């Protein structure tokens, strides 16, 4: 039984008002939003309201919002969609390299080494098909240098895809400058905003993005609902083939309940962004300060970067992160070693090694991510059990050196 949940970057609970808004669409208003009849029209109206709500959260126009199944689909759609269109191919793409030898037929993508797997693995899949990739490094705090984006641009660069906030560190990337550079060079710019939407403000026009991914379950809406912002005029190939739902961009009967939930969650998030951030960052800072005071030989990874207010990533010297997560879970505190998607993997986090941590240090690092409903008493609880668990692990650690120095 867990008492305290500090893993909101993995997922969030559905907000009660969100659930209330959704419920009618599973029973009374169950109709297909594409049907002509009145029940269908009611479902359609709900979907369109949600589209307006999501658009408002990111400063977009409603017709620029495509509902998807979540962040992974949105990222894949943006990346494969832009590249397939740029070479005039249908998806799933065949080997580009087999098509032509002209460099323009082999598009180029610029991304970073700290992207989520949904972006990285999509890029790697394209790389195997002959697309060339530039993976920009980040500094020790987890931030990419926007000038390095400019330097990486080639005539055949078709897409820049750089996340807004990193899921493990919370590091917020300089999207405005990158967006300006992308616009100057007339290159499509996609951002994975799954970890920032609903946490910090983002306006698609301020940052000049053409494509933006967001996910419902990271902002108190249900799993299985997400959105892709597609700036008007963007040439994007569809990922799925089917009916004419969502103007053909994304066929498949709309997940009305989920979409309504996403809209409602976006509506709730927008006016409370500032107050949520203030509340959550105060608690996050208290957690960090408290840990630094109580536990020797720890370090906050990427502490100097601009970060999402809810995230902290802490390296505990001499600890197996996996064992610490289990020990804490048994004490009633839920947190994680990096991304939930890579649990059980042997490899240390690619994000932490990208900011210069050794494999050992990366495996010793835990992520604590707070949420809108995190209470101060929960942070007090965490500050009690984490030092306890760390001491318990270090007492039996074959690698922990009881040196008095700070790391």
């Amino acid at each position, binding site marked *: 039984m867990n008492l305290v949940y500090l893993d909101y970057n993995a997922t969030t609970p559905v907000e009660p008002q969100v659930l209330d808004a959704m419920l009618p669409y599973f029973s009374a208003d169950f109709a297909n939003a594409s049907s002509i009849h009145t029940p269908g029209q009611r479902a359609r109206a709900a979907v369109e309201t949600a589209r307006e709500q999501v658009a408002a959260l990111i400063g977009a126009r409603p017709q620029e919002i495509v509902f998807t199944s979540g962040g992974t689909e949105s990222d894949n759609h943006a990346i494969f969609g832009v590249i397939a269109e740029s070479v005039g191919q249908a998806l799933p793409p065949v080997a580009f390299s087999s098509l032509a030898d002209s460099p323009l037929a082999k598009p180029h993508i610029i991304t970073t080494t700290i992207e989520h797997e949904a972006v990285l693995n999509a890029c790697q899949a394209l790389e195997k098909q002959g697309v060339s990739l530039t993976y920009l490094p980040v500094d020790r705090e987890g931030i990419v240098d926007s000038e390095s984006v400019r330097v990486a641009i080639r005539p055949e660069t078709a897409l820049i895809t750089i996340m807004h906030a990193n899921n493990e560190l919370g590091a917020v990337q300089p999207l405005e400058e990158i967006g300006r550079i992308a616009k100057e060079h007339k290159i499509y710019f996609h951002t994975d905003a799954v970890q920032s939407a609903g946490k910090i403000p983002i306006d698609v026009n301020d940052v000049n993005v053409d494509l933006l991914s967001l996910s419902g379950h990271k902002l108190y809406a249900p799993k299985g609902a997400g959105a892709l912002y597609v700036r008007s005029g963007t040439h994007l190939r569809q990922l799925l083939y089917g009916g004419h739902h969502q103007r053909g961009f994304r066929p498949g009967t709309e997940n009305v309940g989920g979409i309504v939930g996403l809209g409602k969650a976006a509506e709730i998030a927008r006016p409370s962004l500032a107050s949520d951030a203030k509340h959550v960052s105060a608690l996050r800072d208290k957690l960090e300060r408290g840990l630094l005071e109580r536990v020797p030989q720890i370090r906050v990874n990427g502490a100097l970067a601009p970060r999402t207010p809810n995230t902290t990533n802490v390296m505990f010297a001499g600890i*197996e992160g*996996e*064992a610490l997560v*289990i*020990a804490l*879970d*048994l*004490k009633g505190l839920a947190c994680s070693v990096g991304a939930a998607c890579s649990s*059980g*993997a*042997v490899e240390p986090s690619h994000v932490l090694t990208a900011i210069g941590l050794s494999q050992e240090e990366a495996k010793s690092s835990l992520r604590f991510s707070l949420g809108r409903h995190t209470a101060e008493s929960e942070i007090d609880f965490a500050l009690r059990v984490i030092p306890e668990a760390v001491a*318990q*692990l270090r*007492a*039996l*650690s*074959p690698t922990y050196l009881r040196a008095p120095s700070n790391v």
Partner: protein
Amino acid sequence: MSVTAEFDTLPTREETQRGLVAIAMSGGVDSSTVAAVLQEQGHPIVGLTMQLWNQRRLPELQGDGPKQHRCCSLDDVYDAKRVAQHLNFPHYVVNFEEQFEQRVVRPFVDQYLAGRTPIACTNCNTNVKFEPLLRMARQIGAERLATGHYARIRKNEQTARWELLRARDESKDQSYFLWGLSQEQLSRSEFPLGELNKEEVRALARRTNLPVAEKPESMELCFVPSGNYVQFIQAYSRDAGISLSQNEGDIVTEDGAVVGHHNGVHNFTIGQRKGLGFAAGKPLYVLSIDPENNRVVVGDDDSLRTTSFEVNCVNWVSIEPPSASIRATVKIRHKHEPAPAVVEALGDSQARITFDAPQRAITPGQGAVFYDGDRVLGGAWIR
């Protein structure tokens, strides 16, 4: 073999009676039943399933069709999780792939390539299950680690030593694979099935409605699900960049006459008769393997029987290291009936064992375990 874990700061078994017990859960019926038994006894429990080996790593060994109950298959992890859900206790999958490869798989392959016939299970027990897994169990707050082994542990109050005993069910006894455990490891281990026989375990599994109650037993070495070691060694060596060139050689008789050729010493084990690749007038067996000269020596059944051999890495279990020679019954492979012998220590970690009567196929790489009745006095590797 050295066990260097630091077990000096937390309370020992005597100090905490009803503390949290971790269970090493493979997803099979035995370790699942351990969970049911301990829970019925009122212990708080936590399940740990080790991810040890990635079967996708050597895809050429996958074979056709889904093969059930491989080591670390998702099915087994899923089964362990179902049992934990059924009995309602916490369960975690923990990754020990790196340690398993370094301490079990790689030595297994190296030994085969050196002409020996290793036992991976003993290494896994001594160096993975009762070392990093036990350490992790203790790090997460468990005082002891319970496993589904068929063997017994008891404290001898006179000698103050932890003793390892054979299982009550002779046919299931696994004490042969546990001789490497230190006193520290034994003091923190628990084998709840040691007093039970296979039927009783199945009955318990059924009575507690375990979802794995009818699951068949797995007999093969966990990371070689096909049972084909040669194929595994070849595939692993290729993957790990171990050169298998230079592997062709001669098969010779004891007096050096070449009677055939072979494709690598890892294809052979002492006492093997089949697969020598040639026909002889009388039955011939592998007598010894000489990896230096890449030769396999064959001879008749009589030559296969020997009386005396040396062992290394001696570990004394139920008794203090003896100062003089002792008499014991010695078991030289899993299916061997222990035979009377004298064990004579030669320095710290070596010994000479002399059977009263010659034994067949004493095989380098296998364990020699010294018993006094049910008690495991100690064990060692056959040189």
